[in-house]
């Protein structure tokens, strides 16, 4: 795997210890959350969805750097990004289970997690569509002279859809404060991205088409992601315009809950499992003097938080049928006639 870090990323930015620990904690919370939810899936307690196990470093690196007022756009593979914005686990898990206390009242589900109060502007399930939408939210910040930044996550597969092209051109043209983050996990649903893309790096090899720098980052290295995120967010916040980051990563599981991911060569899976972002980071933290006990406590806490969220969600009430007709319109209802 070739990895080139652009000149922007890694130019001596030091990751503060607080942020390192916060990233580690976030990664753990995401991991345990996804694991708890996957168990619920196989127990028949929730419908399917898309886990980010193996890809946690990307969400965590951006999560710890997001400020209040910053906004996040994610895809159907958005549990991680939701949690990374501080959205409570319980409400998130309850939403996956279609419960009334879910963050979307049970109306959204796994593919549409939204918590506007946390800056989580939504998870979008039609590939590519949210890239222009994120540009619009960034435009609003610029319009109002606010230094808010929008971060938009999407998969490698999204780089071949028209909306990607339109959004990148517009964002670059208007120097919008938006960071586009391609989570290149090397697969779309079941087909390798390399089989359907005319260039080797689906995002980075397109950056120049919008006058942007190609940025490729090791998406399983939380520190590398942190640096790339810091640079891009800072650039956006200073009015320097958008960035397009290609973060190389891998999903440990299949595309969606019931997919065993068998279409991937065993050696490929094995080599990426060795590069698990959490194990890598744990080693690194230990190596830089964080003690084992601190990490173990963090693991315990994260795990029990996830377990509690799962129990909470399973016990949470189903939505009342009367809510079927609420919130189609801003008046709260669904009436289309007068």
């Amino acid at each position, binding site marked *: 795997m070739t990895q080139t870090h652009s000149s922007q990323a890694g130019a001596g930015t030091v990751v503060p210890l607080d942020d390192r620990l916060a990233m580690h904690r976030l990664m753990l919370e995401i991991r345990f959350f996804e694991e708890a939810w996957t168990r619920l899936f196989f127990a028949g307690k929730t419908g399917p969805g898309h886990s980010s196990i193996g890809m946690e470093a990307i969400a965590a690196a951006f999560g710890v750097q997001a400020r209040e007022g910053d906004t996040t756009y994610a895809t159907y593979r958005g549990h991680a990004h939701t949690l990374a914005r501080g959205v409570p686990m319980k409400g998130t898990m309850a939403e996956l289970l279609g419960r009334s206390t879910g963050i979307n009242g049970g109306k959204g589900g796994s593919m549409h997690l*939204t918590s506007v109060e946390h800056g989580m502007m939504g998870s979008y399930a039609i590939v590519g569509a949210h890239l222009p939408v994120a540009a619009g*939210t960034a435009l609003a910040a610029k319009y109002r002279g606010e230094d808010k930044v929008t971060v938009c996550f999407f998969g490698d597969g999204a780089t071949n859809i028209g909306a990607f092209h339109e959004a990148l051109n517009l964002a670059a043209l208007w120097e919008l404060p938006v960071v586009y983050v391609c989570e290149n996990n090397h697969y779309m649903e079941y087909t390798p991205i390399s089989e359907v893309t005319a260039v080797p790096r689906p995002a980075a090899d397109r950056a120049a088409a919008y006058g942007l720098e190609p940025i490729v980052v090791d998406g399983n290295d939380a520190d590398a992601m942190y640096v790339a995120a810091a640079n891009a967010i800072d650039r956006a916040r200073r009015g320097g315009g958008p960035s397009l980051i290609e973060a190389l990563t891998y999903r440990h599981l299949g595309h969606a809950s019931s997919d065993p991911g068998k279409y991937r060569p065993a050696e490929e899976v094995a080599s990426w499992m060795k590069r698990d972002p959490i194990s890598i980071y744990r080693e690194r933290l230990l190596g830089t003097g964080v003690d084992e006990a601190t990490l173990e406590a963090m693991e315990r806490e994260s795990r029990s938080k996830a377990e509690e969220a799962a129990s909470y969600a399973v016990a949470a009430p189903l939505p009342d049928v009367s809510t079927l007709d609420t919130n189609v319109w801003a008046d709260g209802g669904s009436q289309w006639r007068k």
Partner: protein
Amino acid sequence: MAEMTYRSAVTRAIRQEMRHDDSVFLIGEDVAKAGGVFKTTGGLLEEFGPRRVLDTPISEQAIVGAAMGAAAAGLRPIAEIMFADFVMVTQDMVANQIAKARYMSDGQLTLPLVIRFGSGGGLRFGAQHSQSVENWLMAIPGLKVVAPSNPEDVIGLFAAAVRDPDPVMFIEHKGLLATKGEVPDGDIVDELGKARIVRRGKDATIVAVGMMVHRAREAAEALTGHGLDVEVIDVRSMVPLDMTTILESVHRTGALFTVEENPRLCGWGAEIVSIVVEEAFDSIDGAPIRITTPHIPLPHAGVLEDAAIPSVDGIVARVAKHLL
């Protein structure tokens, strides 16, 4: 009170709303420096500057997507998509993203945006620049759909659309741009979901939208020559739909005709006919009749296009045949 064109009413409407609220901005192709392909946005760049009047690339998905994202952040975007046909280029944004966002988020996302475009036939532009999309848009839950037929309504309904907290598709009829009407001075703010009886009558009700309102009205005048006194209703807003006014009229007249420019199948006429039949079956004396453009793409040649779209003579003939 002043006479003005439908075209200049559009400009005045946008100007009124941009003056009224700094969070309102205009985004679209050629809308700024050039003043718009239909010359409906002239002078706005000069008054409001490039922050609030933005020329875009030819990127309909980005235009509408950006409007959505800005609206989600609390602004009130007005996105121009030149021709109604091109709305289909961004139909995922319209039908799947914008229309569904509020419901999917259970009310967390509010999208106070307006998408406006020139719709309708009669200009010999051929099939890809003449589409009427009233029914295609009305069929999408989560959208409001407004189609003014005269300059005063352009302003009042546009203001209502911009101030509405929900996404509104605003249909400007290209064939009406040069038509004139009296418009009161000062700000005009109307209400969505109010149909208007533009001609009172007792023998039948004709329901129409946009350009067809004018044809229906002329037809009604001509029908007096057949001894028929026909009521004409301008629907004005497809969603919300003012069924109260329409049902009340049909209860009085006992006969319903709809005149649609959009293609026939699953037109808004079918919706209104179905509601009327379901809710006023005993009030109607016979089958409601839909007068529509046939279910075909529109042709270029004038003689063909004129034969396709409901005409005054065609309406007169159909109504007379049915009632006499």
